[in-house]
């Protein structure tokens, strides 16, 4: 048994505390250096661990983004993934989760046709869009079983994966028939840093670039044209009013004043 794991990674701004561009009403990210979405480190690490668990397995990273997004594929290779695909082209610009997940699902299908895919891994959410939905939407387009919020892949064989999904009130155990989609959370592992060997491989790596045509999609199905929703305008959250300082000579006095405030504001 050998697995083919696909891991979806995104290039996001390294600093997401950005202003709104008054001209466009959209976040001003120009000039902010891009980086690997931090939560995707866990998905990459899990792909590499699955490779270690099941010898002979391969892992492929996929990203939808601009030319510069190739760097996150390189980062994935440096961390132990075997190769990557850059889904890129002007037609993908301005896509939302709906359009991006369609593009990702088409890329996964194409990879699946080349070499059957066992698992597709995702990060919990992105630091910019941050819907935490792209993984589940990709599964929906593929019509593959999926679990998001996965804290452990308990078992995996040729036909299925058993996963632990962290719920609000406990942990579900689910058995997914392969191929399947898994959305990871931070608890799943502790990402390792790129190895020297990985960095060397990353330097040499060449990534195929697929546009809508290669994916068998119309330009109108992806990017802004294919988006199901659009951000009309962005704003900074309203500033909070200045705080009240609770003062007192002793802890008991401070405690008394604080409790007065909490009761007065009907908070307790």
């Amino acid at each position, binding site marked *: 048994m050998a697995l083919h794991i696909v891991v979806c990674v995104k290039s996001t701004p390294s600093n997401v505390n*950005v202003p709104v561009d008054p001209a466009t009403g959209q976040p001003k990210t120009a000039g902010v250096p891009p980086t690997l979405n931090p939560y995707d480190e866990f998905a990459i690490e899990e792909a590499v661990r699955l490779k270690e668990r099941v010898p002979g397995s391969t892992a492929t990273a996929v990203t939808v983004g601009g030319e510069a997004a190739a760097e996150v594929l390189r980062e994935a290779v440096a961390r132990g993934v075997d190769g990557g695909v850059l889904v890129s082209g002007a037609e993908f610009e301005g896509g*939302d989760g709906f359009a991006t997940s369609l593009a990702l699902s088409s890329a996964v299908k194409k990879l699946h046709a080349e070499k059957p895919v066992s698992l597709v891994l995702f990060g919990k959410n992105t630091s910019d869009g941050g819907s935490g*939905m792209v993984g589940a939407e990709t599964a929906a387009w593929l019509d593959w079983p999926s679990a998001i919020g996965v804290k452990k892949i308990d078992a995996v064989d040729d036909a299925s994966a058993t996963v632990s999904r962290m719920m609000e009130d406990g*942990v579900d155990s689910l058995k997914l028939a392969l191929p399947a989609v898994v959305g990871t959370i931070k608890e799943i592992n502790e990402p390792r840093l790129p190895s020297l060997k990985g960095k060397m491989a990353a330097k040499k790596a060449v990534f195929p670039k697929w546009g809508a045509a290669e994916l068998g999609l119309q330009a109108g199905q992806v990017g802004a044209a294919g*988006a*199901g*929703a659009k951000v009309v305008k962005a*704003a900074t959250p309203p500033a909070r009013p200045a705080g009240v*300082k609770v003062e007192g000579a002793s802890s008991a006095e401070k405690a008394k004043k604080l409790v007065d405030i909490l009761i007065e504001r009907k908070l307790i």
Partner: protein
Amino acid sequence: MANPILVVAVPSRGKLSPAVYELVSAGRKLADSLKQPLYAVVTSDKASALAPDLAARGVDKVFAVEHASLGAPVDDLHAKAAASVATKENASRVLVPATVLGKAVAARLAVLLKAGLAADVTEILDGGLVRRAYFSGNLVAEVEFKTPVGVMTLAPMSFPRAEAGNKGEVVTVAFDPGASKCAFVSFAAEESNEVDLGAAERVVSGGRGLGGPEGFKHVRDLAHAIGAAVGASRAAVDAGWIPYRHQVGLTGRAVRPKLYVAVGISGQIQHLAGMSSSGTIVAINTDPACPLMQMANVTVTGDYNELLPAITDEIKKRKGSPVAA
């Protein structure tokens, strides 16, 4: 023809969660603003037993899709069941709770209904636009659907819970969602009688400033005294002082309680992303200059070792003699 607003009441362990009542009040607002009726669909093995509760909270029509397989928290089955009603009734907006299962169901609904999706909506604006936080909580977006149908998940604690209202009709629907490629094996409940973070009206969180796992005893004591859930910063979780499920922030849970008490937490942006929309934020910290003390509504400067027991005592005292308050 009507294009109703449809609340998808995905039950949790055979019950309706309070999040569903929040969807009803949000749905009512949207329905009134778009001049459409408000419908709900309950997808459960006990749907017909659960539906009357929603019908009594001002939902015009509740569809009970009951099937044995809907007793399991399997996303595609619930999505198919809800989609069958959404399609038949020509729903224009579909509201789903932003729980782990709800998110998975919403994603499948979006694809089944070829609908745009807005996640973790916190506000419904006139004209049907919605607001959600993004860029890790640094920005809020006004989102417009481009598709005829829009699916949205609603962030917990963002809308009031619908109370009793006009009594609506209950319609039982026969629907077999078929087989799933996902099998539910088992559920292990969290061993604790603590309040769930996501649905908590009050949260007391501890950070690295607690200095060790013992510090959480003081945090728990205060939390119990005011009926709060216990939260934590990532630093406290990473140190192994408390399990990950308590983590608040970007890589943890997002909370929106009426009262958030942060103890020994400096307030780095990743933590703020999970709690900055709380109603009232109280910070207890030795450092009055740290970011959390700067943004909090009420601040107490000092050592938690002394302050927390004093606060807990004071609360117990007042509870004991309400006249003194």
